[in-house]
């Protein structure tokens, strides 16, 4: 596997968010040689950000978020892509979004912002106005890629802001695995990430999509993710959240074509004073779609996690199968987990729909059993927690990544 750390042309650095203007944004966009459509969209998104209030989120505390003094990235230097470049021969594109603008401007213009709308929240708007980092994965018709493709986003300075955009387009019958990672050192003062991921799957396309949030402490992560399905398309989606100070992710699998299928696993571990929220939606908007969601949550210390999930079955759909589950384990008295597993159902011709949610702590008997076999209590707890998250961990396609995650989890227990 080759590693290549791409650097785009440095351009004039932007000032803080509060000092930004539409003119300054346009000037930077022109200086970077961006196409007109993109200049216009950045301007429109920024106007929206300026003209609208922050949304009211009851379970995400953004009272200490200082967006005004954050300094947005001026290039894509926080994006690293790793892949086997010989795939170029099959027509596969995997490169930073900024570089791809030079070669695939029309393709990007067609899809960018189609699934994650800039006018949904001011954070989406700021993302669309400011994005520099990002990646384009394009897989042509019937091309099947075995090796995982890997994009890593990093934050390295206090008060810096990145808005990385992961854009994935799989043509009919294409197949790929994409790992998206967020990594930064601990202890930086309030870096901000406003990421977005848009995934478009053609008919019968198959994607394995792993989104691994492992920011250092202090990071605010406010993100949006959408996967749009073609007919009989399928996605194995993995959402892991271990890092950051505050996380708010609005994610949706939009099963809008007949026969689409998603298998969505998630693991969240909040400890110390982390506050991690994910709001995953399964939207069934076509016939015979199949959705399965299983999130596993661990909370320790004063960690607070929120699972605000939803199964939505729209009118005039038939034969839907849907299941949503969340299971939480508490490791400390002060930890907190909120679970809101919703169902909104407007069709009666469904095959199955349901949800389940459980919450508890590690059973004394389990611990006792292991201690009776000479395993110290701490070690037994670690083993039980890793076992609890095993179904999620084992779905990560790269061994080295699995080991790194297990290590990160063990450190949190």
């Amino acid at each position: 596997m080759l590693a290549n750390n791409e650097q785009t042309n440095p351009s004039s650095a932007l000032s803080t968010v509060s000092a930004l203007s539409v003119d300054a944004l346009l000037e930077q966009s022109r200086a970077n040689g961006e196409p007109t459509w993109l200049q216009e969209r950045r301007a429109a998104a920024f106007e929206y950000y300026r003209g609208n209030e922050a949304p009211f989120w009851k379970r995400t505390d953004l009272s200490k978020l200082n967006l005004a003094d954050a300094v947005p990235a001026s290039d894509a230097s926080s994006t690293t892509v790793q892949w086997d470049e010989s795939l170029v021969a099959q027509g596969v594109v995997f490169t930073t979004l900024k570089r791809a603008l030079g070669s695939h401007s029309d393709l990007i213009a067609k899809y960018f912002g189609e699934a994650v709308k800039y006018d949904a929240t001011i954070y989406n708007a700021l993302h669309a106005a400011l994005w520099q980092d990002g990646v384009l994965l394009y897989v042509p018709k019937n091309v099947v890629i075995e090796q995982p493709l890997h994009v890593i986003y990093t934050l390295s300075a206090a008060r810096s802001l990145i808005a990385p955009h992961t854009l994935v387009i799989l043509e009919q019958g294409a197949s790929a695995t994409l790992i998206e990672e967020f990594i930064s050192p601990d202890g930086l003062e309030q870096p901000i990430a406003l990421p977005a991921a848009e995934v478009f799957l053609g008919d019968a396309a198959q994607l394995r999509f792993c989104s691994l949030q492992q920011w250092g402490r202090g990071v605010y992560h406010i993100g949006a993710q959408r996967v749009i399905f073609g007919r009989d398309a399928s996605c194995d989606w993995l959402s892991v959240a271990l890092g950051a100070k505050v996380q708010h992710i609005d994610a949706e699998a939009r099963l809008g074509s007949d026969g689409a299928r998603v298998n969505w696993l998630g693991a969240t571990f909040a400890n110390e004073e982390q506050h991690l929220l994910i709001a995953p939606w399964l939207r069934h908007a076509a016939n015979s779609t199949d959705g399965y969601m299983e999130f596993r949550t661990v909370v320790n210390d004063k960690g607070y996690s929120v699972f605000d999930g939803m199964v939505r079955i729209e009118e005039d759909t038939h034969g839907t199968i849907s299941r949503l589950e969340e299971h939480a384990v508490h490791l400390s008295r002060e930890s907190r987990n909120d679970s809101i597993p919703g169902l909104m159902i407007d069709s009666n011709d469904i095959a199955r729909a349901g949800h389940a949610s459980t919450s508890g702590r590690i059973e004394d008997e389990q611990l006792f059993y292991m201690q009776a076999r000479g395993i110290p209590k701490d070690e037994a707890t670690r083993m039980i927690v890793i076992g609890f998250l095993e179904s999620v961990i084992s779905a990560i396609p790269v061994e080295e990544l699995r080991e790194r995650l297990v290590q990160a989890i063990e450190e949190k227990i």
Partner: protein
Amino acid sequence: MATQAATLEFDYSKYGFRDEERYTFKSGKGLSEEVIREISAMKGEPEWMLKRRLQAYKIFLEKPLPVKGTWANEELAELDFDAIHYYVRPGEKVGKSWDDVPENIKNTFERLGIPEAERKFLAGVGAQYESEVVYHSLREEWEKLGVIFLDTDTAVKEQPELVKKYFGTIVPAADNKFAALNTAVWSGGSFIYVPKGVKVDIPLQAYFRINAENMGQFERTLIIVDEGAEAHYIEGCTAPMYSTNSLHSAVVEIIVHKGGKFRYTTIQNWANNIFNLVTKRAVAYEDAQMEWVDGNIGSRLTMKYPSIYLMGKGARGEILSVAYAGEGQHQDAGGKVIHAAPYTTSRITNKSVSKGGGKTTYRGLAKIASGAYGCKINVNCDALILDDKSASDTIPYIEVEEDDATLAHEATVGRIGEEQLFYLRSRGIPEAEALSMIVLGFMEPFTRELPMEYAVELNRLIQLEMEGSVG
């Protein structure tokens, strides 16, 4: 079950009739400080209650309608507060014997079968017509044991210490806009006190009737179950159908002291033009047991989430609710349990059926507060959608702030299976009847908790609603 279904014939005009309006007082439409002072003066209330009303009115004006935010329902915007009569007085005093009740009102309740029910199996009965309780009785044997069963207006005068001590402590006026409205204009409702150790083993019943158009009924119920005492209270609600909306906005406060046991059963069958926005809340202390049995069949929009605060070690709570939403109806119901003490347990069971464009929503909260270790919660929600015009939402909120707790929530949504229908039809049961049998079977965990007469009544209502559901 087949025989039962076949023999039940039901006449809906039993509830749908309306009486001629002959009131001793009817306030104008809309609400003002004047109206509140008038209500209070007419009732001859003490000054402290008037003060409470006026404070609450201020809160009502300040609070926004909860159409945006977490517990939102946009249909509330249809409600016109200025088009409502806030106080309608049907007669001069509360009848102690059935003969004292004015003739026309007596006829109403006789048509609804109240005196008959009282004779048969009730310990006491209260009947409220519009704003005022018109009839109240309690069997002598319970009166002797110190049980108090009054309308709340009379209780303010006769039991001022108890009322003052508990009124507004469980549902303060500032709790929500409708609790504020109720506190400002409340009238009628039941006041029950069961003394230490007294076990009232047959139900107490209240019956609520709205007759006038654009009427607002705001009863206020306060129930205190003292240490080791037990009781069961049942309320039923009906109204005739008008083309414009009426509002029913009650507040129910319940205190179950140490070791006490209380069950509150509601069969709500309001007409389909009634907004039913009710705040019901109970606290249960050490080893106490509180149960809400809540059936919602009628109304245009119901928003009601009976709640239980488990405040003492070992307290138990149970909420069993069913909802049936037909054409033009939205049953937005559920329940809340808040575990605030260790070793408390609770169970919420919800069953809902939607049909003909109706919508059911289950909203619930299961919360384990920090420090409430050793708790167990079990939540089960099942919804049945009978046709493709109807809808169902399930929105449970679960908040766990304690590690030593066990919580399980499970929900399913489905439709009636072809196989089930085929099975019944192959045994010669017509499709309509088969459908209604399946729905009644689905509701069975609820109906089996009701006294027999009520279970039969509820089954009839559901069958009636189910009529014409095939085709």
